[in-house]
């Protein structure tokens, strides 16, 4: 609780000092290197990555990650730097994609317009930026949460229009297929590897450009508007124009990403630009750290890789068990206590299985879902009934309950809860969760978002901001 009777400025400075006395280790190391070299290293790593031998799938994942990074970086301008709300961002992404699709396919006119990428992409970017200005105009009259709501419904309106209006030209739910790949200098990019390289280069260039803007006058203007708009206006900063620029620029970056997305997919479909996509972009930005370019990019890359790992059944199991063990190792000290708990868990597990096998073999006859090392380790330790669905469901509930209990209790009770939770987790995984990989992936993504926010609300690279009351 902040100090009573102390003025706002002093209490803010005090809070900043207390959080600055323990700077984030990574940021400390990173700040020694300097921003431009870091960007250079990042760019080189991304461009060299395919040379270690990536499959088409991994290149596709790379494309997804880079697209998400580009959109997150664009979102960062309005949300992170200017402090505005923009829940309609996905509509800009879609708008850019659709404009590109209309200009570079058979859709319009007799044989369609097949503009070169050099023309089509800038047109898409400029048109979308203008739409961003239109949206920005509404910020004159509303602010804060109302702004969030308005932008959210702008996105919904976009979705409705692309789905239901003018199906002949916009394609309706079928979207527009047969979009040209990117043509430039007489050749075109048709392979995933090509788009990967293109996106890596574009991302580095966009980040460089935005960094320059951020360090310039407009960046300072955004920062003032974010911190205190009224004061900014009193200091003669034209806040409306500044906000409009933020929206327009963010929209432009989104349109760039959208155009490349349309070209790489060879089509645009309205369902790609709905809430789930927006959620992903926001999650990438917030988890990485709002307000920083590196945060946006890093969050996007990390989120894409983790969610793809969760898609592979073997790796999902490794991630799951790995995360549990890691959580235990990090939170339980001293190590003796951890060893004692794990020991108790082992013994209890073996004992329980022995008892159950003796009593009713049916109950322990079920198959384990994991393979390899995990299977051999757990085979004689875990009970898996032969009809595992319902006990598995219950185990999920028990896991959540014990997990929550573990965060609220102390001492021996807490240890018991943790031991129980680990057993329940293994049981739930083997009996139920691993058998439904897609559903489990969604649940783990949700759990990941919640836990990251609780552990580090400012994101991995973000700065802790003090809100002046």
């Amino acid at each position, binding site marked *: 609780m902040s100090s009573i009777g102390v003025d706002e400025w002093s209490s803010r400075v005090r809070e900043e000092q207390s959080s600055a006395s323990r700077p984030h280790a990574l940021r400390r190391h990173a700040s020694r290197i300097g921003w431009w070299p870091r960007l250079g290293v990042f760019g080189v790593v991304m461009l060299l990555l395919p040379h270690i031998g990536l499959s088409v799938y991994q290149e596709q994942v790379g494309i997804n990650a880079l697209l998400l990074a580009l959109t997150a970086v664009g979102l960062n301008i309005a949300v992170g730097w200017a402090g505005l709300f923009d829940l309609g961002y996905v509509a800009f992404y879609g708008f850019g994609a659709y404009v590109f699709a209309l200009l570079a396919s058979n859709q319009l006119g007799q044989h369609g317009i097949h503009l070169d990428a050099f023309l089509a992409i800038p047109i898409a970017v400029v048109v979308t930026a203008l739409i961003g200005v239109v949206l920005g105009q509404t910020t004159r009259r509303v602010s804060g949460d109302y702004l969030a709501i308005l932008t959210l419904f702008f996105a919904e309106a976009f979705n409705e229009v692309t789905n239901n209006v003018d199906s002949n030209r916009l394609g309706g739910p079928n979207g527009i297929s047969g979009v040209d790949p990117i043509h430039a200098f007489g050749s075109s990019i048709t392979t995933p590897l090509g788009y990967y390289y293109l996106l890596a280069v574009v991302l580095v260039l966009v980040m460089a450009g935005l960094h320059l803007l951020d360090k310039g006058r407009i960046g300072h203007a955004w920062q003032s508007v974010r911190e205190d708009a009224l004061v900014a206006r009193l200091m003669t900063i034209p806040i409306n124009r500044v906000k409009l620029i933020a929206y327009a620029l963010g929209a432009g970056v989104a349109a760039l990403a959208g155009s490349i997305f349309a070209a790489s997919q060879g089509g645009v479909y309205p369902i790609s630009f709905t809430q789930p996509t927006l959620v992903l972009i926001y999650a990438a930005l917030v988890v990485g750290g709002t307000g920083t370019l590196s945060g946006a990019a890093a969050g996007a890359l990390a989120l894409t890789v983790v969610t793809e790992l969760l898609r592979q059944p073997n790796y999902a199991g490794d991630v799951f068990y790995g995360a549990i063990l890691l959580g235990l190792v990090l939170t339980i000290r001293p190590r003796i206590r951890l060893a004692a708990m794990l020991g108790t868990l082992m013994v209890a597990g073996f004992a329980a299985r022995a008892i159950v096998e003796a009593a009713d073999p049916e109950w322990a006859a079920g198959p384990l879902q994991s393979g390899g090392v995990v299977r051999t380790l757990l085979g004689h330790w875990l009970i898996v009934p032969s009809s595992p669905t319902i006990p598995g469901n219950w185990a999920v509930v028990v896991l959540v309950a014990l997990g929550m209990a573990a965060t609220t209790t102390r001492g021996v009770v807490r240890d018991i809860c943790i031991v129980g939770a680990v057993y329940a987790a293994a049981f739930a995984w083997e009996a139920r969760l691993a058998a439904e990989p897609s559903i489990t992936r969604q649940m783990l993504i949700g759990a990941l978002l*919640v836990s990251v926010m609780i552990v580090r609300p400012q994101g991995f690279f973000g700065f802790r901001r003090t809100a002046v009351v």
Partner: protein
Amino acid sequence: MQLFVQLCVDGLTLGCMYALIALGYSMVYGVLRMLNLAHGDLYMIGAFIGYFILQWSGGPTALALPVPLVLVCMFAVAAIGSAGIGVVIERFAYRPLRKAPSVAALVSSLGVFFLLESAAILFFGAQSRSYNTESFLSFHTGIHLGPLNISLVRILTVVIATATMIGLTVLVRRTSLGRNMRAVSADREAAEMLGISVNQTVRNTFIIGSALAGVAGVMSGLVFGQAVSSLGLVAGLKGFTAAVIGGIGNLPGAMLGGLVIGLAESFTTGYISSTYSNLMVFGLLIVVMLLRPSGLLGKAIAEKV
């Protein structure tokens, strides 16, 4: 003329459903200044709870208990269940983020939304479950006005929504809990200094808001007949729209917003085309926001410098 009256009835029922969800949203936002995106999922859970109570009482075609008793059970258990889950969500996903920037709480609520929707598919499967209301509560019990039939469940919806709104307004204005809620909403720190337990007040707010969502879920099952895991998204969105149009944080406003949306959808479908009904709602929202940014009944709050 008959079409007009019928559309009014349809619109009012739909509107009251949205109002019930909107009331919960408004309450939580009013006290916490937080957009709880997982609210729609509590509605979905309420619908499932109602379905299972129905099954355990013998199923829609062969109820073993008298219908009024089953209905009361459905509402009560759904309210308690949703309230319980709401409290748990608040305690573990939102309370740690009270001092954090509001976008962190937003992302956390998104995570909760994913978690609940996937858990529902895991436990209940993705298929939709049918309430089959006709079997135990015939469409013909109700008011008959000439060729017009207003079935009992629709009347029930309007009655429950109105009663809830009145009850909540009384709660907020006359009881000590309401006073605490208003205090926490106005200035959280000052309220804490005056001895009001913020944690308890927030928890009680969530209990009431989530219970409302649960009741709305059962209502939806009875009137619209389906319980399915994808209910949460659209319901949340529409309830949210209703709350905003009426003035978020304002209880009669939530009801008004719900009715406005319900009637707008209904009349657009009836007189123009069902294709544009959603678009009309969004258009309405944008118009309201541009003309009266704080909502129809909201008060324009001057920001303290």
